[in-house]
């Protein structure tokens, strides 16, 4: 329930920190970049995700890199087609959560008083709930569809954005009373736009990458429970769910490769987020 750890305090006032090289940032960005490119041009070169290209359960081979599933669909082709679906879902959830969360956070910080109290209590309640379960119950009660999936996942991730932006808005408001901005008649939304927003970008970007990652994981989890995205859509989580039963009968590749795609993608997002956050603590 705590906010992210405060930035590092230098032990001694006189220590100067040298610039660090950032291998994790490079690796993370490279992976995401490669995925975006593969997702864009890959579908032109691989089979249709629904095409039955071979007998079922072919193990990985030169011809079918990731093998084929129970129907004989090419898992590599399906995984490539799924890249943009998963990335788009992750990004749209994060964008949604960020926009709504930031707006509420700015308002809460500026209006203050009762409104702020109510918002913060709500945020506490949202945070008193494992995000996955909140998304699950929301999705079921507003109806199982892909837009609703994005909404449900976004609602479950709004709270941290609210906290983060509100904190910046509050500290900015403090500053404002001493500065001339208030006196010269500048409006609150202008301050929000000029000062709060730029100051929030870095922590929000960190949260953004994390939320992208969580969302891809949660989509997979929900698919395994039979809600959210459904077969026969070529989506990593759905493919893991479809392949789950085959794990016990020996066809490990049907679930392994789509799950690996998820792990690599989310890992790259985490790398980027960790490095943006500075010293990983």
């Amino acid at each position: 329930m705590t906010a992210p750890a405060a930035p590092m305090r230098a032990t001694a006032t006189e220590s100067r920190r040298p610039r660090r090289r950032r291998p994790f940032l490079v690796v993370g960005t490279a992976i995401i970049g490669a995925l975006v490119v593969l997702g864009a041009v890959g579908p032109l070169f691989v089979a249709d995700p629904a095409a039955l290209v071979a007998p079922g359960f072919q193990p990985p081979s030169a011809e079918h890199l990731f093998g084929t599933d129970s129907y004989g669909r090419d898992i590599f082709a399906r995984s490539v087609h799924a890249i943009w679906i998963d990335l788009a879902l992750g990004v749209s959830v994060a964008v949604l959560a960020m926009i709504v969360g930031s707006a509420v956070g700015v308002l809460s910080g500026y209006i203050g008083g009762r409104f702020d109290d109510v918002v913060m209590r709500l945020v506490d309640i949202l945070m008193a709930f494992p995000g996955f379960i909140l998304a699950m119950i929301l999705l079921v009660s507003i109806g199982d569809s892909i837009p609703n999936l994005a909404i449900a996942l976004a609602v479950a991730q709004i709270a941290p954005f609210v906290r983060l932006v509100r904190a910046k808005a509050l500290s900015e408001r403090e500053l404002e009373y001493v500065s001339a901005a208030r006196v010269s008649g500048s409006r609150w939304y202008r301050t929000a736009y000029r000062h709060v927003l730029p100051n929030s970008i870095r922590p929000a970007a960190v949260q953004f990458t994390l939320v992208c990652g969580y969302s891809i994981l949660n989509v997979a989890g929900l698919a395994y429970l039979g809600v959210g995205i459904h077969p026969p859509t070529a989506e990593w989580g759905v493919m893991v769910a479809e392949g789950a039963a085959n794990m016990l009968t020996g066809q490990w590749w049907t679930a392994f490769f789509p799950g690996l795609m998820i792990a690599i993608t989310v890992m790259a997002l985490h790398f980027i987020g960790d490095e943006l956050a500075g010293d990983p603590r």
Partner: protein
Amino acid sequence: MTRLSIESLSVEVESSGARILDDVSLTIGAGEIVGLVGESGSGKSMTSLATMGILPRGLRATSGRFLVDGIDVTDAANRSVSSRFAMIFQNPRDSLNPLMRVGAQIARMVSLHQGLDRKAAQAEAVDLLGRVHIADPAAAARKYPHQLSGGMCQRVMVAMALACRPSLLIADEPTTALDVTVQAQILDLIVELVEQTGCGVLLVTHDLGVVAETCDRVNVLYRGDLVEHGATAEVFANPQHEYTRYLLESGRELEVGDGAA
């Protein structure tokens, strides 16, 4: 007798090789209080940390010899235990473990440096708290740091220093975080202890007023270089280096400003 002599100490940033301290040498005699002044960033805190052998991560001493009571203690490994250094810091409350009673924290140093058993160490701790003029030392020993004021915490730190029976006390901005009245009390306490124990003191500060009041001699540090040293009165009356003059002038301006306010 010379309590401490630092011979050509240089410190640099490990990764970039940037110099923090360049060839700094100074000596402190028995019963002498020696000031080390400079602005923040001048390297004065690094001098004290390097002397204690506790440079922060990423910094490295490239040269330098340390002698205490004439014994070479350059090897950092057993420096503090063997040669009776003690140190007090700028933020006394942060310098104490928040989860331990202050008596226990002093007693721990007593048993470490005087080899007393637990009970004797505890009694000695209470005794030490009395020596730093804390009114009810037995009660104070049972307190946690957060229950004491900043000035009280600094007294506890001084008591902890005494527990080591130090040859040398390094005081790094010991009064900066305290109220003006408390500042004077802590400085008086340090002077009193020097008279009682004959230890040497390296007083690191940016405050020339503190130096003028307490220090026998003063060293001026500017961007890692020792630019001037001498008896306090002489340096103040007749500064040789431009930077010292600048420091003295800005100090005077500050005092005038304080007076007006």
